[in-house]
């Protein structure tokens, strides 16, 4: 049997987190839960970005492409407005998987060939795809609602509490799934790719195979986040889905939490969402974004390892002190 099931110990922090999240709806008001819902989605997007960019070092500027594509496909197919050309309106349990499939398919078609090129080149291509999709979505107004996007989309569930349970459930499912992958040798190889791709090749591993896997996982996660988010909001528009600030949110959540960690982005997603929400009453519009961007900049500048890095360093220091040296299970 697989070892990870036997090692309940390594799940203990997950259990704590799940218990806290389960108690939350009974002790906090719905307005707080709504922030948690947004944080859950941000955490999903950040984990998706982390799976690809944080692990392999291929910095993607195109994740909103995947998220937006999934959201748009599901939105267009489930939209009940009478726009031209007439088409069949499908139920959500059909459109949402199709949306996810679109994110994976569209991503495979466009992003995978781009992963042949490294470093900033890849980032530029991914950004270009984002721009192209955004332009096309605006130009194809008949299908997509153009600049204004699509509104009054069907909801999956209604009410803050229900949506909270749903988004929390998805977030944990995605998180644990990705975490298991990241802990396995796959995660190990992906990190090695970030450090020196050529050497990984000369260890007899197809880096393309591993990058592709990371990418597909990332795209599925982005797709899941995209469709659920779209049908939570009940609307989708180019300004929301393809805005730079959205891209910034995703990247900063990951960087703040700690790149290449899966746990970090969850924390980062929560931190960023609560930071922006809590400043909402204090600061007006642009001031808030300004403050937010400056905080993000400061974190990237002073702590490129993110919070995970800080916590990790402190923990390692304490343990090393106690045991007088590093042990095997601590360095991985």
């Amino acid at each position: 049997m697989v070892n990870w099931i036997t090692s309940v110990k390594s799940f203990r922090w997950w259990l704590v987190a799940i218990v806290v999240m389960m108690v939350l709806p009974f002790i906090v008001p719905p307005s707080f839960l709504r922030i948690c819902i947004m944080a859950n989605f941000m955490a999903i997007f950040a984990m998706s970005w982390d799976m690809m960019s944080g692990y392999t070092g291929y910095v993607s500027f195109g994740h909103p492409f995947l998220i937006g594509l999934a959201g748009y496909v599901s939105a267009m197919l489930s939209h009940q407005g009478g726009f031209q050309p007439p088409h069949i309106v499908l139920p959500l349990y059909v459109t949402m998987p199709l949306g996810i499939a679109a994110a994976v398919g569209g991503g495979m078609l466009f992003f995978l060939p781009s992963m042949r090129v490294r470093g900033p080149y890849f980032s530029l291509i991914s950004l270009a795809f984002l721009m192209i999709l955004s332009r096309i979505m605006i130009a194809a107004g008949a299908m997509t609602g153009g600049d204004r996007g699509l509104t009054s989309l069907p909801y999956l569930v209604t009410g803050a509490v229900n949506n909270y349970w749903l988004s929390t459930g998805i977030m944990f499912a995605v998180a644990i799934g990705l975490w298991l992958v990241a802990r396995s040798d796959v995660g190990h190889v992906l990190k090695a790719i970030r450090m020196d791709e050529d050497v990984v090749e000369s260890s007899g591993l197809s880096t393309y195979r591993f990058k592709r896997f990371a990418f597909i996982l990332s795209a599925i996660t982005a797709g899941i986040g995209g469709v659920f988010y779209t049908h939570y909001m009940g609307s989708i528009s180019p300004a929301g889905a393809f805005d730079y600030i959205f891209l910034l949110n995703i990247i900063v959540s990951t960087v703040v939490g700690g790149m290449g960690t899966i746990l970090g982005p969850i924390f980062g997603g929560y931190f960023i969402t609560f930071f922006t929400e809590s400043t909402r009453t204090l600061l007006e519009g642009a001031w808030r974004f300004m403050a937010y961007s400056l905080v993000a900049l400061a974190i990237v500048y002073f702590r490129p390892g993110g919070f995970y890095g800080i916590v990790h360093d402190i923990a390692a220091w304490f343990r090393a002190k106690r045991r007088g040296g590093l042990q095997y299970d601590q360095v991985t």
Partner: protein
Amino acid sequence: MTRLLEVKGLTKRFGGVVAVNDLNFHVDDGEILGLMGPNGAGKTTAFNLIMGDYKPDAGQISFKGQDLGPLQTYERVKLGIARTYQIPRPYHDLPVIEDLRISTVPDSITRCLRGKKRNIEEVEQIGIGVGLKDRLMKYPHELSLGDLRRVELAKSIATDPKLIMLDEIFAGLTVHEINELTELLMEKKKAGLVFIVVSHDLKALAAVIDRAVVIQFGHLIAEGTYEEIAHDKKVKKAYFGM
């Protein structure tokens, strides 16, 4: 003896410079071949061509009778060719044991997802085998050059190869370290491994190699046992300009 690796008419140009020029040589099963030549002769380029890091402009490389031309680097490694880097390239964020473990990870997502670290004992044995026993938990920046060379060697052994190509593995090591490595190579040779050892230094290889080829300007100028090439006029001229 069976031909393991055969290089025919290999040529590679970089801009106006011909790095490897119509190079021919072969390696047989059970031997240690020295690939020698002064600095800049094209030895490392030949290695990179065999590994598939560059595409040759002309010529053919075959391994166990199979043409390597269309194969990617990792496919060549899976066939049983491994290499070390002249300047060690460890993963800077990983301790030695994790670094070595990358080389034993199966090239398959599904097999990677099943079971974690089950290959740890095997990796430990390889690490101990090259004399890194008490340094398995160290990070690269804590290691000396000699130890980093051992890591390179262990990494190549961990891919379970038939042929290992060692690039300047003795350069910059102490006499003691060289002796230890030499013993290690002999031991591995007995276990059935085949080596190509690249060095610009004729002397260092005397004790190790069965046969040597000497190249200059990317071209083969001499071939034979160490004794033969050490007294070859062309070789002397190439090395000492006399």
